[in-house]
């Protein structure tokens, strides 16, 4: 220490070293780095010649102890989750990763009142779960998070999958977006990078808050896509003898009624109905709202499709409640 004090540092040297460090420093939030508690010793050697004799000396040994750097990253895993008004227990999946270099416990917090969205999802009675079974879906076997009781303890580079669980208000309308945020913070408390907790690191080393501030968050999104479509299928049998017996040679006429029963738009709705076994499609029998459609794949809205198992296909376009009931009919004969 005294030696350093009486040897002023050339300013240029320090500046150059600092600049070099900026470009050489790893993206510290990603790699865990050297394990906390590691001891790094350094001893210099000097060789010299005195009066024709080669001699070697060693210096004192300096000791550096690697302190625990606390860093964490939260990453949303779910794509946008499609929901309907009044849905309950809708889950968003996140991954919490310890990007520090020691074992650390983290507190998890949900915030569903994120500004900038159309509605606030309502956190469920139990709103944070671990993906205990690793399925990626919220299941009965997934363990509930209980703050201060089962805060996840993650080794360096380890991660845990976490669900945020929200209910959707009944007042939302189609197209509304609601966001919910997961924050993971060291149990020591989020603080500015460089904050030191003496002795709080692995093996009694100091713990130092890293570049992430010991806290990280990510936000998931619910999109209200609240379209309910009703499809009802009815059949009428006409036998060759004027009766209604389903015997060979009888004709069955199927009537499908399709209706949007909620707000929202069913985009590019298509009816695709396979021809039943032991029956044969009756040519040119497709109608849409009473208008005949040809069997060919052409400009009109429907066809008899034989590219796979025989089926009738009718394209209804974008449907809303205002379009009312759509009626598709076609007929088959019993083999």
């Amino acid at each position, binding site marked *: *220490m005294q*030696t*350093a004090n009486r*040897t002023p*540092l*050339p300013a240029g*040297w*320090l500046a*150059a*070293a*600092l600049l*070099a*460090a900026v470009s*050489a*420093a*790893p993206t*510290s939030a990603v*790699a*865990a*780095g*050297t394990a906390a508690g*590691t001891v*790094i*010793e*350094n*001893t*210099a*050697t*000097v*060789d*010299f*010649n*005195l*009066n024709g004799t*080669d*001699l070697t*000396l*060693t*210096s*004192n*040994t*300096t*000791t*550096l*102890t*690697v*302190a*625990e*750097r606390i860093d964490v990253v939260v990453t949303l895993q779910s794509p946008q989750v499609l929901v309907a008004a009044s849905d309950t227990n809708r889950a968003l999946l996140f991954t919490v990763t310890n990007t520090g*270099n020691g074992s650390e416990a983290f507190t998890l917090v949900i915030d569903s009142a994120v500004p900038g969205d159309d509605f606030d999802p309502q956190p469920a009675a139990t709103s944070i779960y671990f993906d205990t079974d690793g399925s990626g879906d919220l299941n009965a076997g997934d363990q509930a998070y209980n703050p201060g009781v089962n805060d996840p303890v993650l080794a360096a580079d380890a991660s845990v999958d976490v669900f945020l669980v929200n209910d959707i208000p009944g007042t939302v309308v189609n197209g509304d977006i609601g966001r919910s945020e997961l924050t993971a913070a060291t149990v020591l408390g989020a603080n*500015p990078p*460089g*904050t*030191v907790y*003496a002795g709080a690191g692995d093996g009694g*080393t*100091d713990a*130092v808050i*890293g*570049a992430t501030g010991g806290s990280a968050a990510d936000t998931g999104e619910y999109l209200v896509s609240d379209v309910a479509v009703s499809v009802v299928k009815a059949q009428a049998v006409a036998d060759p003898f004027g009766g209604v017996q389903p015997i060979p040679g009888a004709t069955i006429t199927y009537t499908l009624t399709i209706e949007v029963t909620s707000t929202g738009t069913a985009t590019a709705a298509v009816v695709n109905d396979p021809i039943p076994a032991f029956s044969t499609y009756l040519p040119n029998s497709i109608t849409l709202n009473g208008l005949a459609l040809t069997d060919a794949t052409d400009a009109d809205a429907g066809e008899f499709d034989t590219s796979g198992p025989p089926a009738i296909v009718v394209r209804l376009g974008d449907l809303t409640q205002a379009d009312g009931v759509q009626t598709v009919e076609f007929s088959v004969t019993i083999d």
Partner: protein
Amino acid sequence: MKIIWGVLILGLGSAAFAEQDESLEVRTVVQKEEVVVADDGSTERRLVPAETVIPGEQVFYTITFRNVGAEPVENVVITNPIAAELRYVDGSAFGPGTEVQFSVDGGRTFAAAADLTVTEDGESRPATAEDFTHIRWKLSSDLATGSQGTARFAAVLN
């Protein structure tokens, strides 16, 4: 920002210096940078003793050598290993009146940084700062009685 610095206890005394030969003293210290904010808001960087380090943090090693004997010494060469956990900061090695060389083979051979190559997957390529295992400072002139020299480098913890 709250920073707690421990007290650095160096192995001062006879163990830190030449044991049998009283001709040279050699000491090493490790430091890191601290930014001090004054009342007027201005900042000052200074080096303070380091006893702990976190990944991504830079430390500065300074080796001081002094001729405490009655005769000049010749062919002074300082050698310092770079610990496996540390990455040498390119261009940081410095020593007044010295020629700086590096080793990429655990200290067996040394050469100027630009002349070093390493073989990787059967291909030879120029060595980079991450390949260096040792640094060597060769004093270009004799060290007279009472004279002192320094050798320094910076490294970042992996």
